[in-house]
């Protein structure tokens, strides 16, 4: 009888752990959508020939290419795939946010400005001698229902698209809504 309980118990425990892990993953994302600060980013096509990969479009942002001068600490640039925090501030009347500074991810921020938001990113590879640095934020993909990718891929290089992104306190970014000009294409509910 004891072994019967043990076999069933072990199976239930394994299932509960795996289900719990996935549920926590979902809840973490949903909480960013609910409570994260909203920033509006300008979408830029990454590679016009190859945007559509299976069922998602690859996206780039204006903040995907950062000027080297934004980094107060140039040493942070040297590490391979370095994790960084990029400070965003609302600029201009079009509602788009721009990068105003960047720092290594480790130590806490020195400036604490309520009007700006810090987003977590990762330098792509090792930056060479160029003036700019490529950064990814984990929001470079937009999954679409099958067959809807082509028109968006085509329009992306013609018209400006914008992305509403929610940013958590620790800087994690989460896609919230995708705009074609002023028109809302997709909006993500928390679940």
């Amino acid at each position, binding site marked *: 009888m004891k072994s*019967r309980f043990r*076999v*069933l118990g*072990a*199976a*239930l*425990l*394994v*299932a509960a*752990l*795996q*289900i719990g*892990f*996935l*549920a926590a*993953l*979902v809840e973490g*994302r949903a909480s960013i959508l609910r409570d994260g600060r909203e920033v509006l980013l300008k979408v830029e096509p990454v590679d016009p020939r190859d945007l559509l990969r*299976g*069922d*998602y479009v690859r996206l780039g942002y204006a903040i995907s290419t950062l000027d080297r001068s934004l980094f107060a600490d140039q040493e942070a640039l040297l590490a391979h795939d370095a994790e960084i925090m990029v400070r965003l501030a609302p600029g201009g009347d079009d509602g788009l946010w721009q990068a105003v500074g960047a720092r290594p991810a480790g130590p806490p921020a020195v400036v604490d400005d309520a009007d700006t938001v810090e987003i977590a990113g*990762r330098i792509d590879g090792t930056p060479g001698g160029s003036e700019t640095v490529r950064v*990814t934020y*984990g*929001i*470079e*993909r*937009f*999954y*679409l*229902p*099958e067959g809807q990718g082509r028109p968006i891929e085509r329009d992306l290089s013609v018209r400006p698209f914008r992305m509403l992104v929610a940013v958590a306190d620790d800087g994690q970014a*989460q*896609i919230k809504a995708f705009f074609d000009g002023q028109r809302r294409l997709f909006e*993500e509910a928390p*679940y």
Partner: protein
Amino acid sequence: MGNHATRLKSEIDGWLAAGLIDTETAGRLHAEVESRAGSRFGFASVLAAFAALLFAAAILLFVAANWEAMPRLLRLGLILLLILLGYGFGAVATLRGYARLAEAGHLVGIAAFGGGMALIGQMYHLSGDEAQALLVWCGAAALSAAMLRSSALTAAAVVLATVWMWSEGWDIWRDGTPPAGALPILAMLWALSLWTRSAPARHVIILSLSSYVVLAVVGGNVVVAPALLAAGAAILFVVAVRLGARAERVFGMGGMPVHAMLAFGLAMVLLHHAFGDGAGLAVVALLSFAACIGALVLSRGADRAVRWLAYLGFGVELCLVYVLTIGTMLGTAGFLLASGLLLALTAFVVLRFERRFKMLRQTQEKTP
């Protein structure tokens, strides 16, 4: 496994002929071997394993299709339910004594877990670290394997670790290197395979080690890694052959000499890639010829797979040397002529060894 049973049965016949056991005992032993072989390898269990693999593929495709007809939370709920059903089915099957069916349930469970992670990535448009997701998947498989003492989940963890190693280490645009964590992870999975009594997992780990060396070579480490692989394989072969029948118990798996020879062959091919001509080529070629002959002499032709792998290695090496050196200078006719000569030479060597082994066996049979 069938191989093992056949060998055991011929041994029993040998004992009977030698008068060590009587006819009745021999009959009982035969029945015992047959019953064990039957329980290990049943048609139904093979079907169950294939069904589990098909289920798993269906789950992954289901997620990949981004099927809009169903709200995504419902899709996620279905996948979570599938996890529960997979492990629940495993538990019920274990209690009823169908160990293989239980493993099929476990595989469905872990596939559903991976599908769930992919679905969440799709739901929230996550981009970035696929390699990390694979590592999490591998960790979940290993943990579940430990908790359920599941051989199939251990093997699945090894496969996932290998895929992780390649996705982390291989980069088409720049020289990749195998991730530093790969070897410790494989070592840990070997330890896990002792707890879960998983010989299949050990087979996959050995193959994964060879693929690690290939990855290291692709990443620019062209000499040291294959040289180490060759040395390790040679030592392993000698140890396995010296242990003889005990090797299966010591390593916890059969076929170690064959694994060692395959790894050695791979190392030689990689070294040939590094040393395409001149003295380097000669050294590598001599080394592999010596290894083939050495394998035959050391194993005394006792293991049929080892014997034929050695002949194969010998033949392949001859062809390689030919292609790398003179093949470029001769025309097609010359190529055919030379191939014929090479084949004749190989056949001559094989014949000589086969005759010697036959004589050896005959004298052995006479002596007791």
